[in-house]
C-alpha cells in the first residue's frame, strides 16, 4: 500500500504571535516550528500503522521553503520512508493543494492523508481541494481509519454520535484526534532519517485563489470583575449590558 502524508509546519504552541508586512503575514522571527500535530500524531502515525500491517511505503510531502526540512526530517525519524519538498512558499490552500495534486498525478497513491487542519491557519481546506483536483473521494475529520482491500472505512464524530463512511481507494482523508496515538521518534529512527531521501521538487503552481488582507490578534483579555454572590441584579446587569452575553 502506497500512502502519501501531507506534512505542514506550525509554530510551537508557546510562540509569541506577531505579524508583519502590514499585518498580512505571520512574523516567523524567533518562532520555533514543529510538525503540525494533526499531521504528525494522527495522519503520519496511522499511515505507518497501515504500512506495518499491510506492507507498502509511506511518503511525505510538504510545500514550503528550505526551512521546512527539519520538520520533514522529524517525520522521517518517526518512520516515513521518503520525503518530497515542493520548493515554494506556501501562500494559500489552493496553491498548496494544486502543488500536491500535481505531484500525486505523476505518482500513484492508494491513500492520501492530511491533518484535519493546521493549528495556526485552521483552514481545513487542503485535503478537500486535493481530492477535488485529482477527482478522488474525500472524508474529513476522520477519527478512525481502517483499510480493507480497495476500500477505506472511516469514522467521523457527529454532534451526539458517530458517522461511518466507506470510500473506494484511492481516497483522500483528513485525520482528527483519535485516529492514532502520538509516537516519539527513537534513536534508531533519528539515525535512519539521516540517509532517507529528501527530494526537492521545483514549484509548478503560481496561482492563488485568496489574498490575505489582514491578520489581527484577539482582543486582550480585560480584568476580571468580581461580583458579590448576593448581588444577582448586578451580575445580570453586567452580563446583559456590558458583556452582552444574555
Amino acid at each position, binding site marked *: 500500500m502506497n500512502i502519501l502524508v501531507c506534512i505542514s509546519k506550525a509554530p510551537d504552541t*508557546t510562540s509569541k504571535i506577531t505579524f508583519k508586512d502590514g499585518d498580512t503575514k505571520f512574523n516567523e522571527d524567533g518562532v520555533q516550528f514543529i510538525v503540525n500535530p494533526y499531521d504528525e500524531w494522527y495522519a503520519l502515525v496511522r499511515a505507518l500503522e497501515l504500512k506495518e500491517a499491510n506492507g507498502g511505503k509511506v511518503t511525505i510531502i510538504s510545500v514550503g521553503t528550505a526551512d521546512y*526540512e*527539519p520538520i520533514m*526530517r*522529524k517525520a522521517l*525519524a518517526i518512520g516515513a520512508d521518503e520525503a518530497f519538498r515542493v520548493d515554494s512558499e506556501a501562500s494559500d490552500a489552493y496553491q498548496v493543494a494544486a502543488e500536491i495534486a500535481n505531484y500525486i498525478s505523476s505518482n500513484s497513491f492508494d491513500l492520501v492523508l492530511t491533518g484535519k487542519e493546521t493549528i495556526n491557519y485552521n483552514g481545513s481546506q487542503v485535503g478537500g481541494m486535493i481530492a477535488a483536483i485529482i477527482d478522488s473521494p474525500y472524508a474529513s475529520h476522520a477519527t478512525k481509519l481502517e483499510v480493507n482491500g480497495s476500500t477505506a472505512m472511516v469514522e467521523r464524530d457527529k454532534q451526539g454520535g458517530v458517522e461511518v463512511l466507506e470510500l473506494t481507494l484511492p481516497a483522500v482523508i483528513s485525520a482528527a484526534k483519535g485516529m492514532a496515538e502520538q509516537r*516519539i*521518534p*527513537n*534513536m*534508531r529512527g*533519528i*539515525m535512519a532519517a*539521516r540517509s532517507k531521501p529528501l527530494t526537492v521538487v521545483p514549484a509548478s503552481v503560481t496561482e492563488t485563489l485568496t489574498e490575505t488582507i489582514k491578520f489581527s490578534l484577539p482582543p486582550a483579555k480585560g480584568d476580571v470583575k468580581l461580583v458579590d454572590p448576593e448581588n444577582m441584579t448586578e451580575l445580570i446587569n453586567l452580563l446583559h449590558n456590558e458583556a452582552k452575553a444574555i
Partner: protein
Amino acid sequence: MANREDRFQGVDYYNIDDLLTEEHKLIRDTARAWVKKEVTPIIEEAYEKAEFPRHLIKGLAEIGAFGPYIPEEYGGAGLDQISYGLIMQELERGDSGLRSTASVQSSLVMYPIYAYGSEEQRKKYLPKLAAGDMIGCFGLTEPDHGSNPGGMVTNFKDAGDHVILNGAKMWISNAPFADIAVVWAKNEEGRIHGLIVERGMEGFSTPTMHGKWSLRASDTGELVFSNVKVPKANILPGKSGLGAPLGCLDSARYGISWGAIGAAMDCYDSALRYAKERQQFGKPIAAFQLQQKKLAEMVTEITKAQLLVFRLGQLKNQGKATSAQISMAKRNSVEIAIEIARESRQIFGGMGITNEYPIMRHMMNLESVITYEGTHDIHLLITGLDITGESAFS
C-alpha cells in the same frame, strides 16, 4: 501523588539553540517528549517508594540514553558529545536518578569496555548494554575509600586461567539489579585493573542500601566479593592504574555537567510560571523585586552554565577537554543547580515543600550529585592543583 501537567519549556536566553544542529535539537526534543510522557507521570511515586522505575529501561535505550557516543558497530548511536550532553540534560530535568542510571551505563560501563576492553569484550557486552537488555554498574568507591579511591583494598590474585577477587564496594548505583559490574581492584603488585564481574558468579552479592533521602528513584547497593572466581578473559586489557577509572569519571562528570543544568532549568521554569500565576497583595508575586531578583539571577546562572558546557562539548568533540576543565564544569553546574533549587523552593512558599512540584525532589537529588563523581571540594582542589601546580589533597 501529584498528577500535574508537565508544562516544561527549555531555557534558552542566549539563543544557544542557534549553535546546535537540527539533529541535536531533534535528539533533545525527543528525550524531552519522552520524559514528559513516561517519567513525569510516575516519578513522584517512584521517589516516594524509593524504587527505580525499571520499566523505563527499554525506553531509555530507545531514546539513545545508553552509550549515545559509542560507535554504531557496537550498538551505540555514534553521536557526538553535545548530543550526549543534551540527552543527560533532559533526563535530569526529569530526575537525577534516571540520569544517574544512564550516566553509569554509558560512561562508567560502556565507555571502559569500549575504551579499555578487548574486541571480544566489546562485541559480547556493548550491543546488549546499548539495547538495555543488560544493565551494568561501576564499582570504585569502598567503605573506607571514597575521595581517595587509590587507597582501595579490593584485590585479586592470580589462579591460572582465572583470578580470585576479594573485597567490597559501597554506594554503587544500579548494583541491586545490574547484570554486570565493572569493578576496580588491585593485583598482587598493587596495580589497579578493571574486571567485568557477572551476576551469578559464586561469592558475588549485591545487597541494597536503604534509607537514602536523596536519589530515591535510583537503586544503590554494595558489591561484595568473597573469593569470586573471575575468568582472566574478563579483565579489561587496554588500560590499568588509577587513570583508567578516572578516564571513565571524566566522561560521566561531563554528562553530569549538562545534567545538573536540566534540574536547574526545571526548577527555574516551574518557579517562573508559579511566580506569574500566584497572586499576593493584589498582584502576581513575579511583580515583586525580591522575587525578580531570584528569577533573574537564576536565568543568568543557567545561561552561563549552558555556555560553559557547550564549549566543553566542543572541546570534548575535538578530544581536547582536560580533566580539570571537566571538573570545573561539573562543580559549577551542580552548584548553580542546588542554589537554584533552594531559591525556587522559596518562591513556591509552602507549596514548594510538597510533591505537587518537582523542586524538593531535585534539591534532595542534587545533594548526591554534588557528592558523587568527585565531591564539590575535590573538584575545587583539582582546579587549584591545575592552576597552581601544588597538590592540596594530602
